[in-house]
């Protein structure tokens, strides 16, 4: 399951959000184009700069290596480092993009970059736990293109979160800001 993260600061943020009457928007991002589209959409269409606190959530996920042939711990550490580096890149992208948006729109926006760890593909549970613990107002997810492809595609994580989240869920497709039809 998720390694402990800085929960105390997040809970403190949430409490003060409640007092200020602000909404907590959680955008879960991975390294896909769909996530980038979801971020752009969230900033343009969803966020009220005065009223909202935006959390960009990334989950660093890796498979723990078995120790059957020895050296399992080393392998796991290497994977962990790679996963962390991936998550770090996503955070940097998000920070840059949000920075550009804030500058362009000349509005202050309170936001936070949160990275959680999940070993062995508990990503979806980590996301849902985070939503529950922080009492988020909504969850926003990117998803691969579904409209033009015969087979409906919604990643397993997005699909699971959509079914089981206890809050409104927004699915932004890869061709994202495009109008239907």
């Amino acid at each position, binding site marked *: 399951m998720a390694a402990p993260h800085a929960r105390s600061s997040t809970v403190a943020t949430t409490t003060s959000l409640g007092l200020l009457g602000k*909404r907590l928007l959680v955008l879960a991002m991975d390294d896909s184009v769909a996530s980038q589209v979801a971020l752009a*959409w969230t900033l343009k*269409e*969803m966020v009220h700069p005065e009223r909202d606190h935006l959390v960009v959530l990334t989950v660093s996920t890796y498979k723990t290596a078995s120790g059957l042939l020895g050296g399992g711990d080393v392998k796991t550490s290497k994977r962990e480092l790679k996963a962390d580096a991936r998550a770090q890149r996503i955070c940097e992208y998000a920070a840059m993009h949000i920075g550009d948006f804030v500058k362009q729109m000349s509005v202050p926006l309170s936001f936070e970059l949160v990275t959680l760890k999940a070993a062995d593909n508990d990503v979806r549970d980590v996301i*849902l736990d985070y939503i*529950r*613990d922080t*009492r988020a*107002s*909504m969850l926003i997810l990117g*998803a691969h*293109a*579904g*409209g*033009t492809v015969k087979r*409906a*595609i*919604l990643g397993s994580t997005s699909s699971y979160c*959509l*079914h*089981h*989240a*206890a*809050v*409104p*869920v*927004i*699915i*932004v*497709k890869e*061709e*994202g800001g*495009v*109008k*239907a*039809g």
Partner: protein
Amino acid sequence: MSSTTSTTSPAATNPAPAAAGTSTGADPYSDRHGHPAAHLLEPEERAVHDEHHLTEKAASTSTLAGGRTVLVPVDGSPSSIEAIEWARHHFLRPNDTVVLVHVRSYQNLYLADMGASLLPAVEDLEDVARRDSHALIRDMGRRLLAPLEGTNAPPVTRVRGFAIRGDARADILRKARDVHADAIVVGSRGLGMLKRAVLGSVSDYLSHHAPCPVLVIRPVTTHDEEHPEASP
């Protein structure tokens, strides 16, 4: 609130084959609104679209500057109301145009011999269903246009409604394409929901197939529960 009802039916331009050879007298294969009898049509042709303009300004089809077109499917369930309330408070902007859509299935009478003489019975059912559909759309529109608390202004000024007879999933998606929706706001559980299911089939379908963003709305549950997985 002005409302004009115009009826468009794709099948009106192609008369059903059975009617082609009849005289210009009363056509036994069309109902009193001029729609060919449903059981003679292919599924795609059965859809009937009745349009409502719920606000005066919605009569023109162009969108207001910077405004988005937001499609909201409704079915009369509490979930539809949740979706509308959420949209009002959390998403809609004054320049947006809301398109309400209600899809009803056509009324079936399963009888061995569906002759033309039984059409009046089906027609009556259809009329009731159609009236209910329009009433529901008007009701949802009123809810949507109620002024927001603390202000005297409604969240949007332009609302259109469509009362459609057809298949919920396919027709909602088709309508979204027709109106070039920028987003779809839909409740998570519909009228026909099984107790066990966590997500309705229509919201599930739309989130998979709609090319525009889909906002699936459920009430934010109180987080003091022991087992959050148990909540829908």
